[in-house]
């Protein structure tokens, strides 16, 4: 089994309009113009893993209210096993209004969701028994209000007690604290704050500093998004840059989640080889970035792109 954790999922509602006109009524008459889907970093990686052929993939987290039941059904449609703690508060909705002419993109990110103390206790209990059969565990994304910043640290501790490695995709204070538990692989995300470990990341030296500092604070391996590339910080202190070549970017959406899922897929098939797993993961992200789809269809589309991924060692 593969476990992904999404503590702060949302229902993504995308509305496609001809023109986004404030102060006016807009009418959407066709199904094509409305897309409702389950959102959350760990969940999207789980969907990719199902599409790559893994039969037993579960998503653990909080969902809320009656909309939470709707969310759960949408997730199950993808063949994912749901393992959710249901809260009193209704799950978040992220609203996207996408206009064709002129091309505009308006996003209302709903952060009103709240989790109670008892829900956190229930989640920890459920998580402890939920990971027993897991070969891989990915903890990913933000946390909702009401959850302590040390939650990922606690979950990683439970994984380590059960002898399981963790792949962590996080940011901010929740990442800072999680490092104390020394997760095996850390992927920071920071585009919403431009900060890692509370420091503004501006130039190339800042990226290198951040990767090294994440390792110094506990991460064994670090994969750092770096413009269109990734910086890879190996356990032995070596630093590499992974870059795509000869590509035509169409769509960033879903590329990061495809990367995470493909990394697991490589490790599951061939064992843990940090550089080769990243090369394969980079190819998966590139395959998505060059298509209009947000999910991987199969392994063939990854293998087709592996020659377009170059990894070179940096002299730092």
């Amino acid at each position: 089994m593969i476990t992904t954790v999404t503590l702060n999922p949302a229902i993504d509602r995308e509305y496609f309009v001809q023109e986004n006109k404030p102060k006016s009524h807009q009418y959407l008459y066709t199904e094509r113009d409305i897309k409702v889907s389950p959102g959350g970093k760990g969940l999207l990686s789980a969907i990719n893993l199902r599409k790559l052929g893994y039969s037993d993939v579960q998503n653990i987290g909080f969902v809320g209210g009656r909309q939470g039941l709707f969310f759960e059904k949408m997730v199950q449609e993808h063949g994912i096993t749901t393992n959710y703690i249901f809260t009193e508060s209704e799950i978040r909705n992220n609203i996207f209004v996408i206009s064709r002419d002129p091309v505009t993109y308006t996003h209302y990110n709903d952060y009103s969701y709240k989790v109670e103390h008892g829900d956190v206790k229930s989640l920890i209990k459920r998580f402890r028994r939920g990971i027993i059969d897991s070969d891989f565990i990915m903890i990913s994304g933000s946390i909702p209000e009401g959850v302590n910043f040390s939650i990922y640290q606690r979950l990683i501790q439970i994984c380590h007690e059960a002898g399981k490695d963790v792949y962590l995709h996080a940011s901010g204070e929740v990442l800072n604290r999680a490092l104390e538990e020394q997760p095996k692989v850390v992927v920071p995300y920071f585009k919403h704050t431009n900060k890692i470990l509370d420091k503004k990341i501006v130039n190339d030296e800042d990226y290198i500093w951040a990767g090294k500092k994440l390792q110094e604070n506990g991460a064994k391996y670090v994969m750092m998004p770096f413009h269109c590339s990734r910086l890879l910080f190996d356990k032995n202190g070596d630093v590499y840059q992974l870059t795509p070549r000869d590509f035509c970017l169409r769509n960033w959406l879903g590329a990061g989640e495809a990367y995470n899922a493909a990394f697991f897929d490589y490790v599951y098939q061939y064992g843990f080889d940090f550089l080769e797993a990243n090369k394969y993961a980079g190819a998966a992200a590139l395959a998505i970035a060059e298509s209009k789809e947000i999910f991987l269809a199969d392994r063939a589309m990854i293998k087709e792109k592996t020659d377009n991924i170059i990894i070179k060692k940096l002299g730092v």
Partner: protein
Amino acid sequence: MSTVRKYMMRTMNSVCEEDSIEDVIRVMNKIEMSVLPVVDDENKFLGTIYSRNLLKNIIPEQYGFLESHRLLYQVNQAAENLAEIKDRKVKEYMSNNTTAVKENDKMDNIADIMLDNKESYLYVVNNDNKLRGYISRADLLYYLLEVGENQQ
């Protein structure tokens, strides 16, 4: 041949033997289910807990079970009885003799099991008897609908 895996609901909503009755009622309310699977700390399926069993334990026996002419004081009595048992453990009220089916079982066999056990839900386990979800009468009917359509 279709298997349970194709039609089941893949959910790990469950409680443990040591959870309280209050926990059970809150989970049932949130997920709109009147029965929950009971598992151990490794997700091994142990049995089920039914809302009907809980109601039987709190509604005064002399008035019968869920009769329409129940008076307010009888409801109050039931609420008082529930207050008394809400901190008790699931293991005191669960059913241990519940049949579970495997993910790879044939759908054709499910109808027999459901009718024999009078269950509206059957819990689904893997080969290690670990919970993987459930299959309902509605799922069985949906399967039969598909079979009929394919025969035409």
